[in-house]
């Protein structure tokens, strides 16, 4: 039975990452995270605070890229920094590289002094990871993303945070890494990335093969839960009627053909 797509599994897995957060600012970077966070607000966590990604807190839960309907607050960039330090925020960022210890890189590939490929810059990753709950979304899981050591540490994993002292470790909270193949946390031995579940149609071996470091795998790894009928209706008819999600995570059949 596959009457759901891989993108829809990813959306519900992302939503699950926010289900226990309570009344905090859910801050997604990228399309699937935006879909997942909005899904969480409509299902598991109606107390989540959402923004339009610009400067407004949304009273309602509009479809992807729709204009705000009801506005419930003002969140210009300066106030985002305030909320980061205040701590009531869970951000899901992208990651060009993630390493065994859950460090993330969005700054540059190669040597910092003269990178092979300059990326965005570290943006808010250093501050996010020592202040508020942080998760990562990786739409294309590969051993180019999951590397033994990131070239530049933008987002700080738990081990480095601890080594940097209590000021860094106190609020370091790397919660989930969701990819197109699986879900992870960083609670493996020695603060390493640990496999929590594999998406339907994916094996543990697939994930291990696509990961460039020694992945913590403990016992029988369960399958990521499948979306409910209610969730599928919300995704397809309310939040993403234009199926934008398939652009970020193409249907698996289409990839195979």
């Amino acid at each position, binding site marked *: 039975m596959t009457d759901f797509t891989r993108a829809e599994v990813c959306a519900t897995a992302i939503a699950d990452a926010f289900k226990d957060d309570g009344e905090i600012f859910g801050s997604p970077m990228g399309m699937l995270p935006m879909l997942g966070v909005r899904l969480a607000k409509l299902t598991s966590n109606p107390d989540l605070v959402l923004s339009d990604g610009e400067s407004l807190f949304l009273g309602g839960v509009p479809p992807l890229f729709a204009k705000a309907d009801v506005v419930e607050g003002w969140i210009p960039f300066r106030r985002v920094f305030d909320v980061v330090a205040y701590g009531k925020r869970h951000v899901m960022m992208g990651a060009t590289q993630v390493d065994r210890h859950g460090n993330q890189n969005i700054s540059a590939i190669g040597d910092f002094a003269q990178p092979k490929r300059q990326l965005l810059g570290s943006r808010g990753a250093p501050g996010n990871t020592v202040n508020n709950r942080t998760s990562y979304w990786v739409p294309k899981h590969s051993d180019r993303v999951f590397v033994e050591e990131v070239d530049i540490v933008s987002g700080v994993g738990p081990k480095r945070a601890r080594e*940097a002292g209590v000021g860094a470790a106190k609020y370091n909270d790397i919660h989930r890494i969701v990819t197109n193949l699986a879900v992870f946390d960083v609670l493996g031995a020695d603060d390493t990335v640990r496999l929590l579940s594999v998406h339907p149609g994916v094996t543990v071996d697939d994930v291990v093969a696509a990961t460039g470091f020694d992945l913590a795998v403990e016992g029988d790894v369960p399958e990521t839960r499948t979306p409910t009928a209610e969730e599928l209706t919300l995704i397809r008819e309310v939040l993403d009627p234009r199926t934008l999600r398939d652009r970020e995570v193409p249907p698996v059949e289409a990839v195979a053909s």
Partner: protein
Amino acid sequence: MNGTPRDKRMTIDEVVASLEDGMTIGIGGWGPRRKPMALVRAILRSDLKDLTIVSWGGADVGLLARAGKIRKLVYAFVSLDTVPLEPNFQKARQEKSIPEIVELDEGMFQTGLLAASQRLPFLPMRAGLGSDILVNNPHIKTVASPYADEDGNVEDLVAVPALRLDVALVHLNRADQHGNATYLGPDPFFDDLFAMAAERTYVTCEQVVDTAGLTVDTPVQRLLLNRMMVTGVVETPNGAHFTNCAPDYERDEKFQKAYAAAAKDDESWTRFEERFLSGDEAAYQDAVREFHDEEQTR
């Protein structure tokens, strides 16, 4: 006299003529939003060199980097949003054509400006701890809290150094001739902080109005800059182009796409420069209008 403060109106070229080689210049706005692009273009036309540029960067950084104006760049990101990676910035980094690079966390950047605006040497924060921001910027130190936390631990925090500016360049929607200025879009960004971190601030705006006009249909909370923070005022309609300046105009996505495409190789960049950047601001605006006329008839 009648207590009227002085008239600070000037031209773009007068602003740029007041700048000097080697200066530290903060550029307001955020990424591809409400950037003082008319002033950036004027700097491109000038002989200014060896600048230290401090910016949450967009095409302002890309253009100045491509023109070889930057000796030192202080940034947290450089992005055009819909074109995530700024091609001219990428090129400059990958060719190592900017001699000195300071990459900060984007919140550290605010803290650095705040420290400068308060004439403090630094302000503490967590951002940076454990990350390569501190590895790649050995000049940034940590400081031990003089107060133990609730568990009796002493926290080391980053002592974010003040980002002092010689000059801040910002673009707002409306200003009066004295330098009071309002933002009419959804986000003030950090233009007031840039202004207060700088020795001198030049504000360009879509329209200069009289002082009473600033609040005639606009809440007083939108007055972001007070004249005591401002050295000079320039009216530059469409002066933030091709970044957005809501509600006056949105980002010019078509033009931005053409900019990004042109940056890909030297030949197309030379053509772009000749077409858009070889004349003065009026010539630029004419060339942009012509660009859109052509796009429409395609």
